[in-house]
């Protein structure tokens, strides 16, 4: 029995005469997690990308290992708008548990590819249905038993490719990349794709408007997730010590370090590692280890998410006060508490800025895409060593774990900045040394590194009150002077942190301020708003402390809205403190539902504020 026989062509279509929609749609693959659909989805994304079509992939997955619903959304956009969309036009339905709901979510005119075992929910007359004889196709291919589930997913790749016009060659290329050029798995998977495509060609009649067409809008771009980019950034920033503790969505950052370091940072002479990565027993220990290593002079980092950040509060305060360079990545997920481990949020802005009891004030970098994760990956070390302080980098699940089409990772344009360090010779020449003396008036003292072979080089680092020579002191003047110097230092930081990214439209009276992954949706919304006649300027903040541009931008605009993804309007709060003169007119537009932002929501929210 051939698959053709068991699955008769059947494509109910509401209106065959719709105008074609080329390279502009979202596909959502509804699967069960742990069923291996990742390979299938990656193949589609990479194939589209290699056909020159801007594309993004966003995975909505449960905090669970196997058996619960997962939705993977692939957006193709000729215009390069790659935010999540509120509805996907095309559904690939592989999960019986969510099928009815998934079908309901399709917009009129939508398309539904479904595993032909489903029998209910096939009654919407305003969408196009395509059955897929997944089980039959799998049976025909006879894959090894433990790979059945994976291979089954390739069936939808083939059917969808056939109906949308994705090139099989592009899929082969995508698989080659995925399987690191190992031909055996590539062939196994590709055979299924081809069989499914052939079946579709023979049995299905194209009756929907969605199509892809080769284009050239991805050249010079790369497809990468932020955690991988961050790890690479750290490596090209010379990370020599990383300690971490597993936590979603940060684990893949440390795991990428472990993947890439052996190839990039093995000493050719000895075959030994020029780095150390330690899986610590918890996040407190992870940061503690990184603080020890940073104090020693290594480029040290840790990476975590909300709960881990909470555990780091005490060490963050120590690093701030003892002035130890260390880099802390927080790939934000939904909090408070354990919250939603697999949902995105920008909820740690306030906490990271002030973390630790007493008067702490931290430097925070805020990448907006994987390219910046790379850039801040190395710059964070320069900053940490220049400022002798912990530097927090706040990414989020959307940037960190989803696949972004983004600018290539640019090799650092300058040598490493190791900051102010005195050698034994320097100390010999100076004839004196005081660790915490503000010789340059910028609040930053000179470090010596343990092992410096000079009798005057050593000091005892501490979290307790101290004088300029790091000796314990309870004298009120010593304490006050030290805190004032630290304050100067946080001011000094302003001149070193990355400036915001500003984009202006002629005649704009409205200014939109935001950070991080809001970018995609916000820029798309600005286009929509502009088309509707509302010109807006945008300013994407990339660091705290804020730089002068921020207050200027606020001053320059009649109406300011801070667009952010948390409940309390944390960025707005931080801006109100930065620009108290304007505090009352800094508007807030916020959402915190765990999903990557959509342009539609931003547009509607701004419209509502602007009175329609």
């Amino acid at each position, binding site marked *: 029995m051939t698959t053709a026989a068991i699955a008769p062509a059947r494509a109910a279509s509401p209106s065959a005469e719709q105008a074609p929609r080329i390279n502009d749609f979202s596909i959502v693959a509804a699967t069960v997690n742990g069923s291996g659909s990742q390979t299938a989805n990656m193949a589609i994304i990479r194939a589209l*990308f*290699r056909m020159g079509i801007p594309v993004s992939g966003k995975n909505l997955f449960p905090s669970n290992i196997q058996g619960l619903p997962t939705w993977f959304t692939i957006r193709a956009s000729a215009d390069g708008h790659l935010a999540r969309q509120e509805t996907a036009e095309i559904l690939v339905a592989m999960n019986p548990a969510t099928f009815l709901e998934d079908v309901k979510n399709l917009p009129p005119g939508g398309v539904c590819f479904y595993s032909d075992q489903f029998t209910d929910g096939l009654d919407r007359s305003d969408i196009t249905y395509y059955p897929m004889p997944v089980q039959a196709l799998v049976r025909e291919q006879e894959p090894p038993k433990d790979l059945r589930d994976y291979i089954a997913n390739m069936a939808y790749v083939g059917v969808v490719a056939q109906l949308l016009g994705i090139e099989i060659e592009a899929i082969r290329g995508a698989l080659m990349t995925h399987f690191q050029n190992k031909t055996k798995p590539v062939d196994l998977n590709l055979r299924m794709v081809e069989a499914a495509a052939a079946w579709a060609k023979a049995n299905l009649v194209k009756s929907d408007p969605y199509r892809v067409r080769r284009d050239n809008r991805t050249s010079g*771009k*790369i*497809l*990468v997730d932020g955690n991988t980019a961050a790890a*690479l950034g750290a490596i*090209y920033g*010379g*990370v020599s*010590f990383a*300690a971490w503790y597993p936590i979603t969505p940060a684990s893949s950052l440390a795991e990428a370090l472990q993947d890439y370091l052996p190839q990039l*940072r093995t*000493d050719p002479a*000895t*075959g*030994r*590692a*020029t780095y*150390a*990565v*330690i899986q*610590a027993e*918890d996040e*407190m*220990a*992870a*940061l*503690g*280890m990184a*603080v*020890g*290593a*940073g104090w*020693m*002079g*290594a*480029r*040290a980092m840790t990476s975590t998410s909300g709960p881990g950040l909470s555990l780091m509060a*005490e*060490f963050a305060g*120590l690093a701030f006060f*003892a002035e130890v360079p260390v880099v802390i990545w927080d790939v934000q997920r939904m909090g408070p508490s354990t919250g939603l481990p697999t949902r995105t949020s920008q909820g740690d802005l306030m906490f990271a800025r002030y973390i630790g009891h007493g008067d702490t004030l931290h430097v925070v970098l805020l990448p907006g895409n994987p390219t910046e994760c790379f850039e801040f990956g190395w710059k964070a070390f320069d900053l940490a060593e220049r400022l002798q302080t912990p530097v927090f980098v706040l990414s989020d699940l959307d940037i960190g774990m989803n696949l972004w089409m983004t600018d290539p990772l640019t*090799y*650092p344009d300058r*040598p*490493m900045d190791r900051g102010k360090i005195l050698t034994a010779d320097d100390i010999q020449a100076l004839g004196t040394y005081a660790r915490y003396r503000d010789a340059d008036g910028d609040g930053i003292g000179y470090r*010596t*590194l*343990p*092992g*410096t*072979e000079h*009798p005057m*080089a*050593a000091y*005892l680092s*501490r*979290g307790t009150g101290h004088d300029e020579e790091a*000796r314990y002191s309870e004298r009120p003047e010593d304490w006050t002077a030290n805190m004032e110097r630290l304050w100067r230092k946080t001011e000094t930081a302003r001149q070193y942190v990355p400036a915001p990214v500003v984009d202006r439209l002629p005649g704009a009276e409205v200014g939109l301020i935001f950070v991080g992954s809001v970018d995609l949706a916000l820029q798309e919304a600005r286009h929509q708003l502009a088309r509707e006649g509302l010109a807006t300027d945008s300013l994407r903040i990339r660091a705290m402390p804020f730089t002068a541009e921020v207050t200027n931008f606020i001053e320059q605009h009649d109406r300011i809205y801070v667009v952010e993804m948390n409940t309390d309007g944390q960025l707005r709060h931080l801006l109100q403190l930065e620009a108290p003169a304007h505090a009352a007119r800094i508007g807030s537009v916020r959402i915190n539902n765990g999903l990557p932002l959509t342009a539609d929501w931003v547009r509607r929210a701004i419209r509502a504020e602007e009175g329609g």
Partner: protein
Amino acid sequence: MAVDTATVNRIGLEKGDYRGLPTTLCQGCGHNSISSQIIAAAYELSIPPERIVKFSGIGCSSKSPAYFMNRAFGFNTLHGRMSAVATGATVANRSLRAIGVSGDGDTASIGLGQFLHFLRRNVPMVYIVENNGVYGLTKGQFSATADKGQVLKKIGENPFLPIDVCQMAMNLGCGFVARSFAGDPKQVKELIKAAFSFEGTALLDIISPCVTFNNRDESTKSYNWGKEHAEPLQDVTLVPAREEIQVDYDPGTGSSVELHDGSILMLRKLHRDYDPTDRMEAVRVLEESRSAQVLITGLIYFNPTQPVLQDVMHQVETPLAALPEASLRPDAASLEALQADLR
């Protein structure tokens, strides 16, 4: 300048070169006497103080790194968190010799988890627990090593069994487990010297009386109790690698173990035969010491075969902290190459 060999060590330093700031601990505090022995050990071993790095947590005991070896760098970290900082620091620079001083509260109460994971990783460091069964710096509450039934003025009676850090270390596979008593300075010093010569975590649980809050005679952490109940397993003497061994025991009256740097720790037999390389024997002696309420001191367990963390991780010998930019930052071509996969 002629060097007076009587008052300088092999590298030409005087004992004063190993001094710290004046102590601010109570007069008679056991911790002060341990600081003196740390100074003496480093001086006698002729370790350049700049090649030593000191760590501590928070507590009276943890203050002591300020009171020895001013010329050594140090990090007085957080309460109970010395282990993590020392792990990162020694991994970042494996060329320095590390010594950590902690208290029983610091190690066995708040720091217990980190302490055990530190042991499990075999981080090379001399780890001294200055064990007084009490929180000195916060004025006399029970720590987790306080004896069951012990009475403290402020708090009353302790109802819980003490945590034995040596037993813990045995469980975690530590290769150098010793116990001593601040009232026996010679033993303290020789054990510290041996520990400095050991590659791996060397745990020294030193009973170090708190004269202010826990020195009543019935406390097992008091001077008098220690003096009356201390039972050294051996008389220990470290013979550094380069010195000739002077002591030679008659058969059956002593033995020795060799440390990683070639020094020999001579173990002169006292009351009984004891083989510190026998694991079950060590476990037994600790159980016994606990139930019989004697203070067994000396080298309890010795196993030099386990690799240190840095070797487990196949690290280069060069301190990671000292690697030049050329070793730290891969070249531009490599970045281009790996991005090919992302296109």
